[in-house]
Structure formats: C-alpha cells, structure tokens
C-alpha cells in the first residue's frame, strides 16, 4: 500500500519539538500534518503493568549503541508521555558553555534572559508548577534531609504535574493513567487537532527528498501496532516546510539517510551528541540511621522503606550549579525513581566479593529494594557522540517487537566527561555516606556503557557552520525550509532535565518558521495564545482516597 498527500507543514515527531510548532502553526492557519512512528496512547492505555506488550513497552524505545544507550519516547506526545515531568530552567552558565570548542557553543543570540519569556510561555501552557515540601515524596524528602545533614541545600523541583490528581503511583514512565502528569496529550496536541492538524501514529519517516517546486517530499513507512518490526505500507507527503523533531536519537539518522536525495548535510548532523552528562548512583539506606540521624518517620512507623512511592524526581541538590566553578565540574543531583527492570540491572553491590551486578550478592541487594534511593547526575559531558551510517529503516535495527533496538550511535567518554562523573559520584557519596546513612555505588558502565534518558545535540544550533548543523533560527544549513526543533538542537548538556529548555527553544523557533512558511506562500500568522487544557482519558477514574 502506498499513499500520497500534501500539506503546508510536515512535522516529523510529536514530542515537545513537534507538538509545539504543530499547535502554533495550525492555530495560525497552516495545514499541518504530524507523522509519529509510535502509537497514539491515552489514559486508558497507560496500564500499571510490566508485562511485555503493555504501555511500559509500547511507548518506549531503548536504543542500544556502542558505548551509549538511549531511552526515549515512542508514541504520540513523545518524551512528554514517558518523562518524569521535572521541569527546571537551565542555569545561566550553561548558555555560556564552551565545551572543548574553545568558544561559546550556543548562538550569541540565545541567553537565559532571552529564553526566559519562552520558558514562561511553556510554563503557562503545560502548565508547570512550583512544588513545595508537601509535594515532596518520602524518597525526595530523604534526599533533602540527607543534603541538610551534610550542610547542603536542597530544592523541591518544579514539575509539570497536577498534584491534585497525582496518586504517587510512580508508574509515570509508562504514561499517566490519571492525567495528572501534564504531557503534551493534555495541551498542545489536542489544541493542534482542534485547529485542524492531522496526527498520524505508526508512521515512521525514512527520508526526505525535494519536489520540483522547491518544496519537500517526506517518505514514510507505516508499522504494525504490536510488532513495530513489521512494515505494513509506505507513502509520501509533499510539504512546503518540514520540521524534523524525531528526537536526538532519530532526527540525525533521517537527515543522514536523506543525503542521497537532498545532497550533502552539514558536517554536524549526527555529531556532537550529548547524553546530558547523565549517570545514576544507587544508595541503600540504613533505616535505623534514617530515623536516628535525620529524624524521619512515616505515619505507619517506618522510617523510609518507600522507594516505590512517588512521582519520579522531586528534590534536587543545586549546590554545584555554580557558574564560578570551572566547566566539567558543575552538576545537579536529583533523587529519582527508576522502576524494576531497567532500574535495577546496572545497580552495583557495595563491597561485593563476587560480581557486582548479578549473582547472590545482587539478589541480596534487590531484597532491600524499598530502602533504595537512586540519585540522578546531570553533568557536563564533551559532546563526544557520533552516529554511524544509517540502518536500512528507522533509526535502529529493532530486536524485540517493541522497545529494544540497536542503533549506530558511538560514544567514548573523554577525560573531561569521566572527571565530571567522578566528581559527581564523590559528591553523592559525601552526602549519603556521611555518618553511615547509606552505602552508594554508581551504576556499572562496564555492562552496556553509558546511558541517557535525555539525548541531545546531534543536530545542534550554533553560529559556526562547522560545529553546528542549524543556524540560530533552527533552520538546517544549506537546506532552507527544513527546521529541527527537538532535543538534537540543544548545543550541549544542561546540567538539569532538558525538556523545559527543548520546549522553550521550540517556542522561540516558531516565529521564524512562520516567516519561512509565509515566504513559501503558506497563509499563516504567528499565534501566541496558550493551547488550553484537555483530557486524554476517555472515561473518568478514581484518583485517590487521601
């Protein structure tokens, strides 16, 4: 089956980078089509279930690479459906980062001050709310109290969560059953549809070519709704403007594959990938010391034993987000929940006499799972990721029906990156091992290499054509009318969760895209009104008995 069509603006991907321009351009009068390779799931689909084939595998993609593994969204709404909704703004100094370039990585046109109004716009639209101590879960509270005990500060993390609807079930990585997490399914995407945008799930874009009239033709396969390895058809859609927002692990691959038809790509396409300097440490706390040292106890008499309870990361240490510190030594630490499966395999046994990540001692560590506290490091890496030649289809070769694939990303951490991780690991130990509160080990990087849930920078903005694929309007160099607005456009690691910054950059890019569309004869104007609220659920559901 081949199908053809045409539209004004074709958007590849429906995460933050796709949904935001989809809404604003549709509201402004453009015909908008969004192609999303994953399924369109709503609240009813977000079952609380680890079974293969449930939402926990349908909406995810775990792409294994050589030295770097990427966990990302694979559904309508993209990362916003599976993310933890922690939404801090990037600190001022990150925009001044030089990395190993010896000059500013970000375009001169962008600073935190410049981005703040765009952050405000996203904060209003999702919305994002400042969290208080009543919102901080046991695990976040434990981390905050440990920071305080170590003479450090700790902050509740701003989040895109409606705490009145949240049940603290900690299943949010499989989507939110209660529509409490403010994903794009609740704001930008329904608003885009209301304004006539067409969203087509299970459409995986393969490459882009040119049309004789100076526009673009986007070539896609459709994939089976259960077994994503099965191609069920193919087609093309012609458009005047193309926005690539397939995520930092896929956007550069689509552009690489398009070189044959579009001509040479900028050298920075598929290079300078950053894993946001991410790394995890798992602590096992001594419950007696939680009570005696920190004075913590729950209503049911337990001191902690609450790893399972919560809503992802809610408390962070920002003491090392200090612009006076040298680059590669700044990081944030965030308490995090990672569900079993992915969240346990790489955790290492402290003082192991045998293997650190499997075997009898690992089983003993797992038995104490409710006393775990996972700390998420976001540091400054060296943009050392490089994509190899694209696979036959998609961004990776799929292994399982869903979720598991092998891609071409290669990442060999430099001394700068490793030193940053070592400093952050030491910082975690300094806080959590003080006075015997806990034993801490970083996750093993010997088994699969590094990993990230926040892939960035593989097609980045900048002022220099050699080290950035996009100019500061997010337009692809030498290919006018193609824009990239997802995490791949962010120049480097941010030391905090990047979703808010990706969204703010996408908002900032929209007026320029409107201008480019207008120049190509698309009747569209810029609309700055918020998208309004919707529900993804098809039926109401009891939230909590609290």
């Amino acid at each position, binding site marked *: 089956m081949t199908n053809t069509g045409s539209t004004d603006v074709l958007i590849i991907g429906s995460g933050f980078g796709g949904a935001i321009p989809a809404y604003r351009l549709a509201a402004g009068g453009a015909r908008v089509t969004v192609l999303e390779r994953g399924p369109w799931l709503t609240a009813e689909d977000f079952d609380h279930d680890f079974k293969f084939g449930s939402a926990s595998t349908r909406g995810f993609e775990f792409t294994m690479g050589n030295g770097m593994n990427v966990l990302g969204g694979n559904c309508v709404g993209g990362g916003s459906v599976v993310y933890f909704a922690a939404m*801090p703004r990037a*600190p001022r100094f990150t925009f001044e980062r030089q990395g190993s370039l010896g000059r500013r990585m970000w375009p001169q046109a962008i600073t935190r001050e410049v981005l703040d109004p765009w952050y405000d716009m996203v904060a209003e639209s999702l919305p994002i709310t400042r969290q208080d101590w009543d919102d901080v879960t046991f695990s976040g509270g434990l981390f905050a109290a440990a920071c*305080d005990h170590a003479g450090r500060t700790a902050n509740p993390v701003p989040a895109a969560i409606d705490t009145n609807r949240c049940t603290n*079930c900690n299943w949010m990585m499989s989507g939110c059953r209660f529509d409490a997490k403010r994903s794009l399914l609740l704001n930008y995407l329904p608003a885009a549809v209301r304004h006539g945008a067409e969203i087509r799930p299970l459409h995986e874009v393969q490459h882009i070519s040119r049309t004789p009239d100076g526009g673009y033709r986007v070539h896609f396969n459709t994939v089976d709704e259960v077994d994503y390895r099965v191609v069920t058809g193919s087609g093309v859609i012609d458009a005047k403007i193309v926005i690539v927002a397939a995520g930092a692990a896929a956007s550069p691959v689509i552009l690489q594959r398009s070189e044959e038809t579009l001509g040479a790509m900028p050298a920075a396409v598929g290079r300078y990938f950053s894993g946001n300097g991410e790394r995890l440490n798992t602590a096992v706390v001594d419950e007696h010391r939680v009570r005696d040292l920190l004075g913590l106890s729950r209503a049911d008499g337990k001191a902690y034993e609450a790893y399972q309870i919560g809503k992802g990361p809610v408390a962070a240490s920002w003491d090392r987000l200090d612009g006076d510190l040298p680059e590669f030594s700044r990081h944030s630490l965030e308490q995090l929940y990672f569900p079993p*499966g992915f969240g346990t395999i790489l955790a290492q046994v402290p003082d192991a006499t045998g293997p650190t990540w499997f075997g009898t001692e690992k089983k003993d560590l*797992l038995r104490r799972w409710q006393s775990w506290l996972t700390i998420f490091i976001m540091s400054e890496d060296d943009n050392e990721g490089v994509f190899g030649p694209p696979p036959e289809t998609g961004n990776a070769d799929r292994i399982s029906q869903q979720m598991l694939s092998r891609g071409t990303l290669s990442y060999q951490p430099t001394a700068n990156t490793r030193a940053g991780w070592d400093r952050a690991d030491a910082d975690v130990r300094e806080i959590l091992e003080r006075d015997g509160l806990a034993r801490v080990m970083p996750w093993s990087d010997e088994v699969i290499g590094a990993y990230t849930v926040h892939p960035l920078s593989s097609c980045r903005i900048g002022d220099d054509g050699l080290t950035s694929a996009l100019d500061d309007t997010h337009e692809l160099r030498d290919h006018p009318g193609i824009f990239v607005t997802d995490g791949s456009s962010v120049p480097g690691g941010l030391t905090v969760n990047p979703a808010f910054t990706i969204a703010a950059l996408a908002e900032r890019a929209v007026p320029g895209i409107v201008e480019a569309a207008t120049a190509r004869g698309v009747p569209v104007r810029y609309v700055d009104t918020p998208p309004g609220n919707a529900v993804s659920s098809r039926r109401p559901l009891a939230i909590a008995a609290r």
Partner: protein
Amino acid sequence: MQPGADQLDFAQKMTLEAFADTIIPGERRTPDDRAVAGAAEGGGAVACGAVELMISEEGGLGGMLDSLAAGLDDHAKVYADRTGRLLDDTVPAFVALSFADRTALAAELMAKGHPEQDMWVALAMFSVMAWDTGAHMHTADAIAAGHPGLTAMGYAAPDADGLWRFGDYSYHRVLARRHPHTTASGDPR
C-alpha cells in the same frame, strides 16, 4: 517471527535455566534439580519465569535461543578444559559446571571487550527482568500468585482495580534550606 522458540529441547532449556540461575540465583525446585544450583534462598530467576520470558514472542530472543544455549555449552567445555574441570556428561556442559564456575564464566562472557558481550548481557537482562518484573505475566496477577522476585523486593500490591495509589507519600515537613539563588519560579538562577 520466532522460529525455534517452541523447539527448545530439554537440554537447551536446562542450559538457559542454569544461566538465568547464575544471574539471579534461587533455591532448587526439587532435590535433584540440576539446572538450578541452589546458591540462594527463595525463588530465583528460573522460578520467576526467566525461560518463559526468553521465549516470549514479544521479547524477540526466541529465534536465537537454540544457538545461545549451544554457545553457552561450548564456552563451558572450553572453560572446563582450561581450568581442568571434569564435566558430568549426563547434563549439558554449562549445567555441569559448579555455581562458582558458572559465575566465573558468565562474568567473562559479559565483560567489557568480550566479542559476544552484547548477546550474553541481553540474556542476563531477560533473567533480571523475570525476577524483578515478571514481565511474561500481568504484574497484578504475578503479585497475587506470590511471584518470588516482586515478593522478595517488597513490591506493594495494587488496589482492587489493579492500579497503584499511595495516599501516604510525604513527610510533609521542610527538610532542607533551599539554594539561596533559587528564583521566584523555583528554578536555579
């Protein structure tokens, strides 16, 4: 999609069980259990359905399990030759290794730089997931059935409708000073 998934013979299944038991060890199912070495108390990966998960159509490993089992036994024979171990030839070679030797061999196969590291790590991932998620079953059913891994972890049971809700989730106290440069919106400066 899965040629061979339902064609595992008894010996191949034993070998895969012995590998899964090396990753998350458990108690023997019967006194004469050979695949499970009995190196730990309580059910291990095998009792949690590791082989069921490996052969599941969704997982995508089914088509290669026969060669993975053969590979493990081949590596076990080489290991035994190298270390001077005599293997009982009434069971597959990997099964014939002691738990300590299975562990040492598994560590070699999954070490950074081993040419087959990816393959054995994938098999280990399925073994761990069987124990701590029971991903071949609905989670609520697994918990109700006393799934050994989820039970040992203390994984709380869901409400009657199969969904989790925690009404008691916070210490409801100020637990630290905020960073002095926190902005009015609660962000870093």
